[in-house]
């Protein structure tokens, strides 16, 4: 990793503030990011629509359960884009290997600090004895905030998908109006299910990328505090400045 190519201001932030940086990343790179996201996810969406035609909720569940897969692709994108090179989609898919994917899809699926732990596994690629002290050191610094991040993002998710439904409802002309909550929660009409699945894809796309980016920048912030990255960068500038002078 070349720290001097980083495209964000490095300074020790408070944990909440560092997560906001993740939100800024998504805002800045939303175009390449969502290109990759939809290129990867839409084929699965149509396959799911086709395979589980009669019980689309199964497709929704699988789609939700598979979040760790998308996380790895998104993190691969963010970690490269932050250092100035935006990867193509096949590179991102390659980022899936050797990242404890199986563990993440089973035991660690309900780990509440998922987004913060992911960079430790995926980017540091630690092996053997050095893993657990390293892991504990970083955890001690930010685990609490990472858990809050997960809790808040879960709420953002249902809030946004209900908002999309609500928006649809608000836009319907009066003669077609229906009982919003009855349709949303109880009815199994043909048109509601695919729309719900599509809204899930859209909302998970937005929230999951925010979530992964925020976890990633929380991780960067922990390392900035523990390893004084900001001082390293400033010292490099001093050294370069002196070299220029002599």
């Amino acid at each position, binding site marked *: 990793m070349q720290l001097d190519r980083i495209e964000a201001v490095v300074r020790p932030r408070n944990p909440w503030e560092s997560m906001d940086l993740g939100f800024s990343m998504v805002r800045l790179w939303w175009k390449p990011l969502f290109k990759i996201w939809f290129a990867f996810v839409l084929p699965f969406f149509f396959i799911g629509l086709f395979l589980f035609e009669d019980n689309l909720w199964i497709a929704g569940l699988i789609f939700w359960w598979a979040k760790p897969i998308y996380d790895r692709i998104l993190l691969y994108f963010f970690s490269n884009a932050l250092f100035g090179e935006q990867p193509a989609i096949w590179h991102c898919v390659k980022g899936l290997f050797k990242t404890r994917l199986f563990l993440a899809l089973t035991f660690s699926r309900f780990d509440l600090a998922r987004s913060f732990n992911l960079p430790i596994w995926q980017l540091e690629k630690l092996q053997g004895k050095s893993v657990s002290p390293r892991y504990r050191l970083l955890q001690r610094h930010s685990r609490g905030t990472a858990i809050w991040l997960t809790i808040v993002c879960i709420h*953002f998710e249902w809030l946004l998908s209900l908002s999309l439904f*609500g928006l649809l409802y608000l836009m319907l002309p009066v003669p077609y109006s229906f009982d919003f909550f009855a349709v949303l929660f109880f009815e199994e009409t043909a048109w509601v299910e695919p729309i719900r699945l599509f809204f899930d894809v859209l909302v998970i796309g937005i929230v999951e990328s925010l979530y992964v980016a925020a976890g990633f920048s929380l991780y960067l912030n922990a390392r900035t505090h523990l390893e004084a990255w900001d001082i390293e960068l400033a010292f490099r500038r001093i050294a370069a400045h002196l070299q220029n002078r002599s």
Partner: protein
Amino acid sequence: MLDTTRPIETPEGIELSLRVAGPIVRAIAWCLDFGIRMIIYIILLFLVSSLGDFGIGLLLVSIFLLEWFYPILFEVYRYGATPGKRAMKIKVLHESGAPVNWSGAMIRNLLRTIDFLPFFYGFGLVTMIINKDFKRIGDLAANTVVVYEEEIIPVKKDRAWMDESPLMPITLSLEEQQAIINFADRAQHLPEERLIDLANIVTPLTGKTGKPAIKTLYQFANGLIG
């Protein structure tokens, strides 16, 4: 460079940057405020329960008043922070960095109704994600921002790192001086190998490597603080 600050210029011509606060910390602050209001309503419910219909009317009026004016009053009279915001160490400011005034607080809080649409702050959340300064619609209309309260970490003058303070070989910019002071200040939280790594970067400045370089940097820092 990517950052979550908003540059402002004070009337004295000083450049400052506001550290704007994003959706996560604000959502938690909102939940805290909501919880506080709920507790007040429950207490009120017990107090008015003996009054019958009149009591219910009283409760409804107080719900109306609290829902609309709780954030406004706190933001105007408590330095831009409701109790929830205070707990999360954030506050509301005018875009220029001035404290929020009556009109600002009224506009941003009355427009909550729009932010609340279509369901539980859906519009507000989306606007905050899209906007550079994490403004929701109410903030856009009222020209306000929500910022982190400044944590001014004063450099402790009483802590001297070394007694003698040799003069710096060259004059450094303010930012570079700050880096050396930060180094000395944060040194005790860093492992020694890392300190040596860092000190070796500025060998051109200190003319030394390893532990003597760290020592020289402490002396520089000491000299800079005075």
